[in-house]
C-alpha cells in the first residue's frame, strides 16, 4: 500500500443503453506517480478514456454508473467527495487536454482571457492571472505572446491551439495532466513538437502525465509505463519498452504486429508503355491561396501511387481535381491519352465508371437512409449497362463476401456497422463500378490500427485480383511504406520529391521528406529513443 499520486482501484463503470447494460470498464486498476508518464493504449471502444473520465467526474450519471472501485488522489477517495470538493480538484490539481482543441476553446473570448479565467476561477486576482497567462503563452512557445493574448482561437493553427490548451491546463500548476489523444488531429511534424513540449513541461514541473492514445508511436516516444486495454479490461501493463519487446498477451502482440511500416517494400515496377492517368501542370487557387502550383503526376496500370503531405499541402485538392469534383484552373488530365478537361459531360459520364473514390470517413460518405444493398446497387442504377437487374442481388452478395462481410448484411443500414466495416462497404460500392483506378483519400486514417492493417490488406488483395490502380492519399508515411509502389511528397501545393518507395524511405533527398520521416513515430521505443537523441543533436 504505497503512496501513489493517483491510483484507480478495481474501477467498474456501466452504461445503461437501449441495447442493454454495457460494461464500459471492468475491474480496472492502475496508478500514476509524480514525474511519471503513463500511457493507456487501446483502440476505439476499448474503454481507454472511461477511467480518465471517471477521474475528472465527466461521466454522465445516469446513463453511466460506477459499480465498484476507488479513485485515490494522494490516498483520498475522490468518489466519496462532494461535488464542490471535486470541482476544486478539477483544473487545479488535475487538468485535462483534449483531442480537438477548437471544440474546447470558446470562440467568442480571446485566448488570454480564457487562460486567465482558469486562474481566477480557482481564486487568483485578475492582475496576477493576466501575468500568469502571459507567462504560460511564452512558455508553451506561442510567438509574440503579448499580441496573442488578445487574439481569438480561430486565428491560431491546429498545433498552436493544442499549445493553448496545454497553457490553459497548466494555469493552476496541476499535479496531474490527463491528455486524451492530444496529437491525433495534428500533422506529424507538429505532433512531434507538441509531445516534446509535454515532456519538457513534465520535467520542469514534475507532474504526473496520463496519456490516452491509440498510437503505439506516441507511447514509444513519451511513455514510461503502458497499460493496454481491450474490451473494457486491462490485458497487459508494464514498462513501455518491455511490453513492446516481449508482449505477453495475444492482443498486445496483434496490436504491435498491426503497426504499419515494417513489411517488405515492393520492388520497383516497369514504367514503360501508356500511363493509365497523367496529370500535367495542374494549378488551382482559392482566392489568393494557391492550392496547386503546377503538379505533374503519372499513374501506370496496376500501380499504387501514394501522395503524402501535411494538411494544406494540396493533396486532397489534387485528388478532387483528378476526379473533376473541383475543376482545376489550369493544366491537363489525360486518362489513357484522352484529355478529361476537354471532354463533354456525356463522355465524362462513361468515364466515371473507371475512376472511383473511397473517402476518409465512411460514416459520412454512406447515405444513412439507404440500406447496404441500395448503396451498392446504386452504381448499377446509374450505369445500367454494367449489370442486368436480375443479377444485382447475387453480385452485391459477391462483393460483400469479397470485402470480408456477410451477404445477409445487405439489408442493414450503415449505422449498424463498425467504422472498419463501413469502410469495407464503401470499398464494395467503389468495386461495383468495376473501376480501373480508385482514389483513396485518407481512406484508412480514421480507422483503428488493427482495422487499418486489415483494410490495407484488403485493398492490396483487390489490386492483384482485378488489376486495379490506386492513388493513395495519406498524411502518414509508415502507412504507405508496405503498400505503395511510388511515393509523391507534397508541400504547399508543390511536389518536393517523387520516386519509388524504397528510394523515398531509404535515401530521401529533400530536407522536407527527411523531416517527415524523422517526425513520424516508430512503435519501437528503442528506435524512437535513438531518433529523439538524433533530433535533439540536430537542433542543438
Amino acid at each position, binding site marked *: 500500500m504505497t503512496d501513489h499520486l493517483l491510483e484507480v482501484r478495481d474501477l467498474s463503470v456501466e452504461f445503461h443503453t437501449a441495447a442493454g447494460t454495457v460494461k464500459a470498464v471492468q475491474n480496472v486498476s492502475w496508478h500514476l506517480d509524480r514525474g511519471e508518464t503513463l500511457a493507456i493504449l487501446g483502440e476505439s471502444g476499448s474503454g481507454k478514456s472511461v477511467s480518465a473520465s471517471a477521474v475528472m467526474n465527466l461521466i454522465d450519471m445516469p446513463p453511466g454508473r460506477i459499480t465498484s472501485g476507488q479513485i485515490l488522489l494522494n490516498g483520498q477517495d475522490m468518489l466519496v467527495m462532494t461535488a464542490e470538493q471535486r470541482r476544486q480538484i478539477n483544473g487545479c490539481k488535475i487538468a485535462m487536454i483534449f483531442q480537438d482543441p477548437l471544440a474546447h476553446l470558446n470562440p467568442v473570448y480571446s485566448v488570454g482571457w480564457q487562460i486567465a479565467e482558469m486562474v481566477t476561477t480557482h481564486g487568483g486576482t485578475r492582475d496576477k492571472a493576466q501575468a500568469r497567462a502571459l507567462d504560460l503563452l511564452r512558455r508553451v512557445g506561442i510567438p509574440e505572446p503579448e499580441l496573442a493574448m488578445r487574439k481569438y482561437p480561430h486565428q491560431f493553427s491546429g498545433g498552436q491551439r493544442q499549445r493553448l490548451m496545454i497553457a490553459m491546463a497548466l494555469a493552476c500548476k496541476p499535479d496531474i495532466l490527463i491528455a486524451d489523444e492530444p496529437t491525433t488531429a495534428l500533422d506529424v511534424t507538429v505532433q512531434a513538437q507538441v509531445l516534446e513540449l509535454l515532456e519538457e513541461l513534465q520535467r520542469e514541473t514534475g507532474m504526473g502525465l496520463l496519456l490516452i492514445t491509440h498510437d503505439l508511436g506516441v507511447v514509444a516516444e513519451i511513455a514510461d509505463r503502458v497499460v493496454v486495454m481491450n474490451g473494457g479490461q486491462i490485458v497487459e501493463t508494464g514498462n513501455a519498452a518491455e511490453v513492446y519487446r516481449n508482449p505477453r498477451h495475444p492482443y498486445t502482440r496483434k496490436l504491435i504486429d498491426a503497426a504499419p511500416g515494417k513489411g517488405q517494400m515492393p520492388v520497383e515496377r516497369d514504367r514503360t508503355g501508356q500511363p493509365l492517368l497523367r496529370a500535367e501542370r495542374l494549378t488551382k487557387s482559392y482566392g489568393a491561396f494557391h492550392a496547386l502550383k503546377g503538379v505533374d503526376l503519372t499513374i501506370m496500370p496496376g500501380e499504387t501511387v501514394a501522395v503524402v503531405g501535411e494538411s494544406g499541402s494540396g493533396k486532397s485538392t489534387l485528388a478532387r481535381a483528378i476526379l473533376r469534383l473541383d475543376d482545376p484552373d489550369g493544366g491537363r488530365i489525360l486518362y489513357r491519352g484522352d484529355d478529361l478537361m476537354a471532354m463533354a459531360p456525356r463522355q465524362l459520364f462513361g468515364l466515371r465508371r473507371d475512376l472511383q473514390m473511397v473517402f476518409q470517413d465512411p460514416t459520412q460518405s454512406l447515405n*444513412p437512409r439507404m440500406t447496404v444493398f441500395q448503396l451498392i446497387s446504386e452504381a448499377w442504377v446509374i450505369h445500367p449497362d454494367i449489370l442486368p437487374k436480375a443479377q444485382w442481388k447475387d453480385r452485391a452478395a459477391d462483393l460483400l463476401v469479397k470485402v470480408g462481410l456477410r451477404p445477409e448484411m445487405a439489408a442493414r443500414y450503415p449505422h449498424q456497422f463498425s467504422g472498419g466495416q463501413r469502410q469495407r462497404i464503401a470499398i464494395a460500392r467503389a468495386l461495383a463500378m468495376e473501376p480501373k483506378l480508385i482514389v483513396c483519400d485518407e481512406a484508412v486514417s480514421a480507422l483503428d490500427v488493427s482495422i487499418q492493417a486489415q483494410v490495407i490488406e484488403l485493398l492490396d488483395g483487390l489490386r492483384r485480383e482485378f488489376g486495379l490502380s490506386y492513388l493513395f492519399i495519406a498524411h502518414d508515411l509508415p502507412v504507405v511504406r508496405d503498400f505503395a509502389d511510388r511515393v509523391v511528397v507534397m508541400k504547399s501545393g508543390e511536389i518536393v520529391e517523387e520516386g519509388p518507395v524504397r528510394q523515398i524511405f531509404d535515401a530521401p533527398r529533400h530536407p522536407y521528406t527527411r523531416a517527415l520521416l524523422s517526425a513520424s513515430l516508430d512503435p519501437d521505443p528503442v528506435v524512437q529513443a535513438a531518433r529523439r537523441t538524433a533530433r535533439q543533436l540536430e537542433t542543438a
Partner: protein
Amino acid sequence: MTDTRIQSDPKPRGPFTTWLSMLWADKLAFFAALFLLVALLCAIFGPWLMGDLATKQNLRGRNAPPFDLARGWLMILGADALGRPLLPRIVVAAQNTLMVAGAAVLCSAVVGCGLGLIAGYSRKRAAQWIMRLGDVIMSFPSLLLAVIVLYMLEPSVANIVLVLAITRIPVYLRTTRAEVLEVRERMFVQAARVMGASDRRIIFRHILPVVLPTLLTIATLDFAFVMLAESSLSFLGIGIQPPEITWGLMVAQGREYLTTAWWLSFWPGLAIIGTTLSLNLLSNWMRIALDPAQRWRLEMRGRKND
C-alpha cells in the same frame, strides 16, 4: 394480386402490421392517429349525415348550455346563438376546415420545397430570383395580402386556399434551401457525384429524404397556423361565407357571447387544438419512424410490451 404478394413475402409480419406495432409503441402518437382518423371520417361523411341538422334553427334553444340531455343528444355540447346544435355543426365544419387547411399546407409545402431545392442546389441566377421572390412575400404582411387579393377576387374556398398557400411558401422555401445548402456538401452527396449520378437523382434520392422530416414537422405546425389564419379571414368577412362553416368561423362567431355562453367558442377551439396537437405528436413519431438510425426506439419498446 394480394395473394401473390403474401406468398412472396414469407415474413410473418407484413409491412402494415410492422408499422402498426411501431405506432402502438408510441401511445401518444397512436391516440393522435386515432383522433385524426375520427376527424377525417367526420370530414368525409359529416355533411352527408348531419348536413341538415347543422343548419336547422331552433330559436327557443338559443345559446342552450351544454351537458343538458333534456333537449336530446344532439344538444349535448349546447347550441349557438340561433339555436343550432353545436355537435353536428362541429362535425360538418370538419370538412371545410380540413380541406382548406390541408390543401393550403400541401400546396405551399410542395411549391416551397420544390423552389427551395432548386434555390439550394443550383448556384445560378434562378436561385437569386427565387430567394428575392421569397423576400417579397415575406416582407408583405400576409393578412394584408389576403385582404387585397380576396377583395379583388371572389371569396371562395379555392381562392382562400390560394391566398393562404402563397403567404406560407417562404417558410418552406427558406428552410429547404438552408438544409439543402448543408446537405449538398456532405460526403455521401460527393460520393454519388463520383459515381456519375445525375442531378435529379442526387436531389431526390440523396438530399430530399434528409430534408423531408424537417419539412413534415414544419407542415404540421403550419397546419394550425393556417387554420387560425383562415378563421381570422372568415372573421373579417372575406373568408368562408355563412352558411358554410369552419371551426375558425365558429370560434369567431362565438366571440361576442364569450362572457355569457363560453361553449360557443370553446368546442370548436378544442377541435382545432386537438387536431394540431395530434398532428404534432404524429409528426414527431414519423420523424423517428422514418429514420433508420432512430427506428429501434420504436421497435424495441414494441418488443417490451409483448
